[in-house]
């Protein structure tokens, strides 16, 4: 279903709001070719983009790439944070692992002071 991958507003957002509890939602049906283009709902990403007062308009492709970049970012920061947890021989990622990763990795410097 094309609507799933492009993050068509309504169905995606319903899934998200229903999934506030810890139980993970059942995985959305995969794209026909097997490659998922984007999991994050484009409507939410667009809302973030529009929150910037300097932004006039954003093309659909730009929104899509931002969504995909955000996904990559989540994967990256999760993996980096996990390295710290692994050193502590823990199997659960904690908030402090994230803080350590932010401090250790230069690219995450922009996050300093924003998560509190």
């Amino acid at each position, binding site marked *: 279903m094309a609507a799933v991958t492009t993050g068509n507003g309504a169905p995606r957002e319903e899934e998200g709001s229903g999934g506030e509890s810890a139980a993970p939602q059942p*995985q959305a049906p995969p794209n026909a070719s097997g490659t998922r*283009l984007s999991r994050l709902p484009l409507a939410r990403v667009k809302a973030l983009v529009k929150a910037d007062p300097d932004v006039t308009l954003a093309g659909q492709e730009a929104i899509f790439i*931002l969504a995909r970049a*955000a996904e990559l970012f989540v994967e990256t920061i*999760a993996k980096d944070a996990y390295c710290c947890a692994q050193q502590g021989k823990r199997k659960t990622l904690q908030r402090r692992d994230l803080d350590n990763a932010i401090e250790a990795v*230069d690219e995450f410097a*922009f996050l300093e002071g924003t998560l509190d």
Partner: protein
Amino acid sequence: MAERPEDLNLPNAVITRIIKEALPDGVNISKEARSAISRAASVFVLYATSCANNFAMKGKRKTLNASDVLSAMEEMEFQRFITPLKEALEAYRREQKGKKEASEQKKKDKDRKTDSEEQDKSRDEDNDEDEERLEEEEQNEEEEVDN
């Protein structure tokens, strides 16, 4: 309602799924860590948007485009994202093209359909008009009787 842009969070379920797939099996994530990552993702989008917007403004454009975002990634020192993002963009463009062609085809079919439907409709409308006239005449008669 969101008070600050950072409060526009991305869906928790999706964030959790992405994290779990990035990590080895059996690894868990605390609620605090997950919500912090979710906020970080929102901040990331805001920061990337701002960077991309600078490139758009430099190019005297009012609309952010894909290359603005890619330039922003480089500026933010996330070069490692650029190749996978370019690939994703290619795939997205292919899909959009496919969808556009499919909807154009649908539209053509629909136009053909409505043409034949309109011919049937005009015949029906003539019948309806006759019925309405009949009803009006009946009402007029009733009014006269009341008077």
